[in-house]
């Protein structure tokens, strides 16, 4: 028997929009599984190490695995949590009316929120693919980590713990998180859900908009777009951060580690950056379709619409790029100075200015192409769109 709250079914279509989370989870689990598995396997040969040289090399390998797991796993974990919460909030915003009606009919918050567990599936799909992918890549990864045969042969073992900690537990945790967050978000009076409009703005915002009155409409819309969706600022910054950090790190990795590592980091970086950017901008446009349509009705040009909605994110993305550059520099410094300190043959790490410039140029080109695509999309928003309720 279906319980009462199930009348509102969150469809597969809604879940498919969470592909971004799946991709992030996939990257995180892929990297972490590979390094963790390696860490566990290499741990088993700890006792048969004989020479000092082996010991140092062993320590370096173990530290690398730890650093990579914590840094990339941690970063990606935080990102997936924020992405998930963002999607749930967005879902509730869009389906406010249906949810409000359910509440008005007498369904409790918990009953409605229970359905949100399904958002955890996105994590499961991504994590499972990442986990499987890690095992596919693992043979070459192991060979590579020990390519100079300093350590004795390391064999791949399957560790159930990793499956538990990186796939099953996160899925459960994210499902629970979805329910709790949805419950929290639904905890407002029914009328606020049913009414199409936003709740009254905070006092400070009111004061701010009252103080300067001769700002033009477009400027105001710009500020409004930025401040009304702060999470999007984060995502766009994160996208450029990822791109900047990962591409530059990948270039240094070729010298420090291996081409395969470099390629992996590059691919993960670009995928992450593009998915987040696409998702964020799509949300900007979807969330503002009505505004755009109304502006087009009144005769604002496509350029003005783009400028007011997308233009404000350009500085944000440059800040993200700068942060990414600093981050990757700091991270590599730490790796080289601390982790690889005792190993001979690791070149000293210097900031690579040309690589940064190349990365920046690619970044600008990609960003502008994406923006151009979206401005074409804005052009296609018919002025009649507003009447399609």
């Amino acid at each position: 028997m279906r319980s009462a709250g199930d009348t509102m079914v969150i469809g597969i279509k809604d879940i498919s929009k969470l592909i971004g989370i799946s991709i992030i989870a996939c990257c995180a689990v892929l990297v972490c599984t590979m390094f963790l598995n390696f860490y566990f396997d290499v741990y088993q040969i700890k006792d048969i190490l004989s020479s000092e040289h082996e010991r140092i090399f062993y320590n370096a390998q173990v530290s690398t695995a730890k650093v990579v797991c914590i840094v990339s796993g941690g970063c990606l974990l935080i990102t997936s949590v924020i992405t998930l919460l963002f999607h749930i909030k967005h879902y509730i915003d869009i389906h406010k009316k249906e949810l409000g009606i359910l509440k008005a009919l007498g369904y409790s918050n918990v009953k409605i929120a229970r359905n949100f567990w399904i958002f955890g599936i996105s994590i499961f799909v991504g994590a499972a693919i990442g986990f499987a992918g890690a095992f596919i890549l693992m043979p070459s990864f192991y060979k590579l980590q020990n390519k100079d045969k300093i350590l004795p042969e390391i064999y791949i073992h399957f560790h159930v713990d990793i499956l538990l900690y990186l796939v099953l537990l996160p899925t459960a945790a994210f499902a629970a998180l979805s329910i709790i967050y949805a419950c929290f978000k639904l905890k407002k009076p029914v009328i606020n859900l049913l009414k199409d409009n936003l709740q009254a703005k905070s006092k400070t915002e009111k004061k701010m908009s009252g103080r300067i009155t001769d700002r033009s409409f477009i400027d105001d819309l710009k500020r409004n777009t930025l401040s009304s969706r702060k999470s999007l600022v984060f995502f766009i910054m994160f996208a450029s951060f990822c791109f900047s950090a990962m591409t530059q790190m990948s270039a240094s990795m070729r010298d420090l580690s291996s081409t395969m590592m470099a390629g992996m980091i590059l691919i993960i970086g670009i995928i992450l950056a593009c998915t987040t950017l696409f998702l964020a901008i799509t949300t900007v446009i979807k969330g503002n379709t009505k505004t755009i349509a109304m502006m087009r009705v009144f005769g604002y040009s496509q350029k003005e619409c783009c400028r007011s909605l997308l233009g404000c994110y350009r500085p944000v993305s440059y800040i993200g790029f700068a942060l990414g550059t600093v981050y990757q520099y700091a991270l590599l410094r730490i790796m080289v100075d601390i982790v690889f300190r005792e190993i001979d043959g690791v070149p000293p790490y210097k900031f690579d200015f040309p690589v940064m410039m190349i990365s920046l140029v690619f970044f600008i080109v990609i960003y502008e192409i994406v923006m151009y695509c979206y401005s074409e999309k804005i052009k296609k928003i018919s002025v009649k769109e507003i009447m399609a309720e």
Partner: protein
Amino acid sequence: MIEINEITKSYGNGDNKFQVLKGISTKICDGDFVVILGASGSGKSTFLNVMSGLERPDNGNIIYNGNDITKLSDNALTEFRRKTVAFIFQQYYLLPNMTVERNVRMGADLAGNSDYKDIIKAVGLENEMKKYPSELSGGQQQRVSVARALAKKPEVLFLDEPTGALDEQTGRQVLDYICKLQMEYKFTIVMVTHNINIAEMANTVIKMNSGKITQINTNEKQKTAYEIGW
């Protein structure tokens, strides 16, 4: 002066093709108050959208003061809307996260109009300027959309059932504001409505049935919203 010649418009294609407008011609003079009446589904909204440059007709011409807007490029059509027309819809379509003042400014900026505050006063909302649409009643929201439309100083104002979501009293009040402002700014009004009483306020009444104009009446004397007392 708006001249409309043999407009046709259909939706869908193949077997699903459905002709909404089946050859419509009429003339609207500057300063006219035109009301379009007709049963639901007769194509009134479509006619209004085509006439105002929101949609393109399949065939026919729409000529504003000698300028055929069906021949304009997308950008030129946008420019035309910017300069010439304004809209008021049944659902007010205000921007929810902007104050009343900002919403009106959306129209005012297009015409470089700096005394938009006078129009907010003229629709009786000077005390609600800093409020958000969600804090206003339906009638007040519709008055904001009136102010927003008129702040851009249009030559022609298009209204699609502007009072459809309001009660009689409030609807009459909104119409009265519009009429008063028409006296002052001398724009042309083209309004779609279901309310036959409102037709008495107009000087031209166009009746439509299944995509065609069936009757055009002209009233000698325009009545005010309060005179018709609906």
